[in-house]
């Protein structure tokens, strides 16, 4: 990692673990709950947010000296919404199939508070290169939690991973199901995502005692 200085490396790596947006900063919870029933959706969302946050952070960072302080929230929201809508329109015209698959995520990305949160907390006060790294790191940490939750919810809820029946067929009673195993239908529902994240936080704080709240 000779490319990045120590500080720059920390910008990317910290949010993956000790400064994770979901489990520590409490940002971007809504989408982490809604779309983690399946691993595939979690991965798509993670990749989209990495792209949007990295680009958005750079744009806001470039504009940071011209944005009037009083209306900065409006400006930030307008910038991000305009970017996402532009990409959506272009995809609709030139890559229609892809846009069909991503259209569901557009609303979730614009309303994702991780994006606003990082604009406000980081991009407004730092240079574009650092903001870019911060975007990658934070969206990466967010995506990591999404993928962990998606993995457990799909495995325990549907008995599949990426749609492949890894535990056997529940209707034909093969594989694990032959032994009397049943899918836990509850895992499919959003409230269970909250509980899975709660357990992730528990595990994380057992490993890193500094994060424990009084």
């Amino acid at each position: 990692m000779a490319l990045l200085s120590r500080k720059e490396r920390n910008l990317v790596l910290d949010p993956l673990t000790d400064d994770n947006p979901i489990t520590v900063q409490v940002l971007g919870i809504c989408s982490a709950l809604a779309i983690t029933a399946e691993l595939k959706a979690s991965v798509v969302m993670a990749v989209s947010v990495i792209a949007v946050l990295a680009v958005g952070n750079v744009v806001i960072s470039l504009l940071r000296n011209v944005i009037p302080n009083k209306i900065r929230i409006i400006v930030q929201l307008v910038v991000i919404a305009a970017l996402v809508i532009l990409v959506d329109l272009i995809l609709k015209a030139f890559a229609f199939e892809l846009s069909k698959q991503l259209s569901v995520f557009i609303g979730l990305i614009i309303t994702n508070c991780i994006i606003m949160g990082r604009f406000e907390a980081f991009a407004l006060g730092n240079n574009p290169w650092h903001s870019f790294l911060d975007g990658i790191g934070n969206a990466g940490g967010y995506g990591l939690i999404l993928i962990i939750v998606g993995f457990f919810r799909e495995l325990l809820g549907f008995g599949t991973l990426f749609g492949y029946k890894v535990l056997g067929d529940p209707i034909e009673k093969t594989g694990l199901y032959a032994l009397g195993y049943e899918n836990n239908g509850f895992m499919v529902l959003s409230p269970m995502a909250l509980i899975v994240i709660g357990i992730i936080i528990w595990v994380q704080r057992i490993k890193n005692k500094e994060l424990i709240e009084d």
Partner: protein
Amino acid sequence: MSKLTDKNSYTVIFAIIMVVVVGSLLAGVAQTLKGRISENERFEKQQNILYAMGINNNQGATDVAFIPATEVAEKFDTYIKKQVVIQGDQITEDPEAFLIDIKQEASKAKDDPNYQRRLPMFIGEKDGKTLYIVPMRGNGLWDAIWGFMAIDENLRVEGVFFDHAGETPGLGANIKERFFMDPFTGEELMSNGTFRGVTVAKGNNDPRNNRKDDHRVDAIAGSTITGDGVTAMIRRDVAMYIPHIKKLINEQQ
């Protein structure tokens, strides 16, 4: 000492410039791409209609493959024999029927009780069978859901296609997956001469969907509201077409 960016005049000028730049950029892009986008959307509609008829490029057991956009217009003309518009008791042929916006028609009918809603329908032919393809539209959990249902001469479902604007990925969004759409095929719509539609049912006793006269298909676990939306959409929209389809079938015989 106040910074330039804190001044009121700067704020106002910045806001005005931002609105103008962003607004014209978006409007410009939307306007230039409008043609392509609406063309893509038209192809998509034709692909969906053909898919409901069972004309698709599906190969594996799980993929949903449409006729490619480059061929769809030609295939559409081959398989769809007639496009009709139903208004009141009138059934008229109209080659532009698939351009009718059923969302607009529904809201017009809601605003004005005297308005006679225009109902587009497509009459296709496959393997010597006449199929009646009807569009439907309803609400899921988050946003709109819609689809097409192909109905054969015995008022059985030949095939369906569903799509949605923003259902939960991994849950309600799966209404456009094969494992949800395929079981509709062959389901009876009528029971003793009255319309019952197809219910998306939880706790279905028939998970492999071997019984075709129970008016039920298996729901997707965790997406009750989307499933209920599909049921309601079929019950409301398809029901409007049934008397007209019956009439057309009688005329043919």
